[in-house]
């Protein structure tokens, strides 16, 4: 009986551990990527600002429009 419960606990522990590790790694990756996107956007804006003497709109419109297709959303998981 005790042995059975140990196996049951081990099975659920594996599931939770896999899920937790996966989510932590994903979160770290998303944060890193969002920082990289911000840095790249700033650098691109600097180059575009330097190459174009006439001021354009201040907003960097690199976010794709939301049209319901996969990847079209502008929101990030961190916004949820």
């Amino acid at each position, binding site marked *: *009986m005790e*042995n*059975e*419960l140990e*196996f*049951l606990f*081990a*099975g*659920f522990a*594996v*599931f939770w551990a*896999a*899920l937790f590790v*996966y*989510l932590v790694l*994903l979160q770290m*990756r*998303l944060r890193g*990527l*969002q920082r*990289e*996107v911000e840095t*790249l*956007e700033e*650098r*691109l804006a600097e*180059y575009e600002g330097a*190459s174009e003497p006439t001021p354009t709109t201040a907003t960097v419109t*690199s976010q794709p429009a939301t049209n*319901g*297709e*996969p*990847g*079209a*959303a502008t*929101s*990030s*998981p961190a*916004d*949820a």
Partner: protein
Amino acid sequence: MSAVATPTPDRSPSFLTSALRGLQALFLWATLPLYLRRWTLLPALTGVGIMALLVGAVLAAPREVIEGDVQRLMYLHVPSASVGTYMSFFIAAAASVAYLVSRDLRWDAVARSAATVGVMFTVVTLATGAIWGKPIWGVYWTWDARLTATLVLLLIYTAYLLARSVAGPNDEQAARYAAIFAVIGILDIPLIHFSVNWWRTLHPQQIVIRPDPALPGEMLLVLLISAMAISFLMLWLIALRSESEQLIQRTDRMRARLDQREPA
């Protein structure tokens, strides 16, 4: 050389392409409401579902007479295999077909995300199966047809992810070959599913996915709740991963733009 072009039959769009586009539209129409609420509705549904899975599996479901409490692992193992693994790889294959038809790299990102989640669920399936198998069969692992075919599935999609990660995220040729590989890889799933019927295996035969499920009502209900919970979890994880894959594609495109502008 004649300047007049030789007449060619009009092959576009072919029936197959039209049918695939129709299926793609149908898939989008069916999943769009959930997809648009993926950061609000999906995590909530996943949280409630996982709580219901835990309560159902540990407290509500009756104790199995022969196997005892360890049989409660069924509520994690079976949905991880039949929903988490099969459905993730099915989504990966469907997104790969959508990529081959549309050549839109966002589908490639969805395919890679689904394959990653599928690999995670396959590992969970094999691990929980091994832990369940030890007290029942006496061994953690045996070269049984179903177990071996599942291990082959894990290797197929691990190879797919490794091969795809070597190439750049916006490499269209790599995406094309990877998509074909993902579609071919899905053929292992019927082999896994029917292996218990085709060969003598230690793994038990299907008790749920058949005309007369051989489970008592309470167990079947908990199993269905668990399957719902795992399907919400799978969809949420795929959505999260897709976001990261699309960010990678975006940074890659931005780096390419910067490389064009920066002096060598």
